[in-house]
């Protein structure tokens, strides 16, 4: 091990440096799953060792069984679709409204003074606290969950759009002004592209928050969805079932996050910012 590590350092040829870095990378990638397996084994062992009752903490094996049964019986599927739709629709609406309002505030100092204080005031309201009101207004169906999710998703995009639009370097703006560009051209050709790295950070934060939004909405009152199912399982002391659903929720969040990161990589190939963003995978 030490020999392979030091050998390329002694050889100055640059071609040998890349494969070495690649192996180190894959090693670090393998570490994370290994840790998971170790933790699961420890978890299983501790529960058997201390004889923890299944209604307090289930064993990983019981969770795996619950997961399999939930999927095989078709129980999870419709609830999964409902929650996924709530997340995506709420995230979409919240993002579009956040970006649009961000553009408006970012480009107009008047709008900033007029609107922004109220936006911040709204943001300081805990969304969990207004969720019951939204459920009363919009019913127990999907629409109230979408709205709750949207209210949570919208602020990261608003804030990041405003900051992003102002991040355009002065020289770039002057360059375009010297070419006789008008305000709209400067917005489209410089301010908006310069804002994209910030907007993607906002999207990444918002997509993870959207999972929380949908579940909070379902906890307050719902007829379907994974959050609704968690409550049901909780009432019947089916801890293994609850854990299985938690894993599904986590997978949804990670999946959507990876999707945003993948799109970000394609769109922001030119930016140094994406190299610094937290991928977590």
């Amino acid at each position, binding site marked *: 091990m030490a020999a392979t590590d030091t050998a390329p350092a002694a050889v100055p040829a640059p071609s040998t440096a890349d494969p070495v870095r690649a192996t180190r990378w894959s090693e670090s990638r393998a570490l994370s799953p290994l840790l998971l397996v170790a933790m699961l084994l420890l978890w299983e062992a501790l529960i058997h060792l201390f004889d923890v009752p299944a209604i307090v903490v289930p064993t990983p094996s019981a969770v795996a069984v619950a997961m399999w049964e939930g999927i095989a019986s078709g129980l999870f599927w419709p609830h999964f679709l409902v929650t996924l739709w709530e997340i995506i629709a709420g995230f979409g609406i919240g993002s579009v409204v956040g970006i649009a309002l961000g553009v408006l505030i970012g480009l107009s100092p008047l709008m900033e003074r007029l609107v922004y204080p109220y936006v911040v005031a709204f943001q300081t309201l805990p969304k969990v606290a207004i969720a019951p009101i939204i459920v009363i207004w919009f019913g127990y169906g999907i629409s109230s969950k979408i709205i709750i999710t949207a209210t949570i998703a919208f602020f990261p995009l608003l804030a990041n759009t405003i900051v992003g639009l102002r991040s355009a*370097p002065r*020289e*770039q703006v*002057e*360059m*375009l*002004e*010297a*070419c*006789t*560009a008008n305000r709209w*051209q400067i917005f489209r*050709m*410089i301010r908006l*592209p310069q804002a994209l790295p910030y907007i993607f950070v906002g999207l990444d934060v918002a997509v993870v928050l959207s999972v929380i939004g949908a579940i909070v909405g379902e906890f307050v009152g719902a007829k379907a969805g994974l959050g609704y199912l968690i409550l049901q399982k909780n009432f019947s002391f089916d801890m293994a079932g609850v854990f299985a659903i938690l894993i599904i929720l986590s997978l949804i969040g990670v999946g959507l996050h990876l999707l945003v990161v993948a799109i970000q990589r394609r769109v922001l*190939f*030119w*930016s140094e910012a994406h190299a610094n963003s937290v991928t977590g995978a």
Partner: protein
Amino acid sequence: MTAPLSIQAGASVPAPSRPGEALVRIEALEKIYSTRDRGNIHALSDIHLDVAPGEFLTIVGPSGCGKSTLLKILAGILKKTSGQVRVANAELYGPNRDLGVVFQAPVLLPWKSVIDNVLVPAKVQKLDMGQARTRARELLEMVGLSGFQDRYPGELSGGMQQRVGICRALIHKPKFLLMDEPFGALDAMTREQMNLELMRIWKEQEATILLVTHSISEAVFLADRVVVMSPRPGRIAEIMPVDLPRPRNLEMFNTPVFGKHVGAIRRHFQSEGGID
């Protein structure tokens, strides 16, 4: 408002151009910045300058002499305090299509390919994009970047990026090219090569160039006339015609005539308290 002494200083050196045909005419130009903490700063005082069509003019001076300010006013991105600036017989109010600007940094847009960066002014001015694209390819070939048109700025060296910036400034066939210390960030070798290349472009495009620089030798090497500026307030100290033959080459750096010019300009700055 007017300082008769500096008018005489400016007028005492006759310009080789015929005044009636000046492409750019600057008269009694003043620029005063008002700052919050240091009061008013007199950046430009009583500037008189004519630029003839096809002329290569360089402006040299120490930091704070207002040379970049003058260039920004000409580019239309900075408002003058008073005086008159006319380009091609029209009063200059703001950015102008007859102007091309090369900045200190290349200022390329990192998300656009090299050729799309060159095409930015054409896009802004809604020119015929087919024709502009052909011209962009020709310009890139002229500066030796034809193989790089689909690369992105991040993949280019500093010197290559600055050449892209020059192509961008030329894409809309401006009558007048403004350059603000365009080679300041380059190493000495690249800088000399870029100087030669710029003179070739100047001849080929029949351009009129106003170039601001920190370097006295660069100013002398490139120019038909060197405008020497001095600070506090920024004003024209002398306009010096350069009698070096064209085409110029790097050997001329060692000629007595070249040395004489450089020495004369340097003496200016020594009497003013030194350059930088």
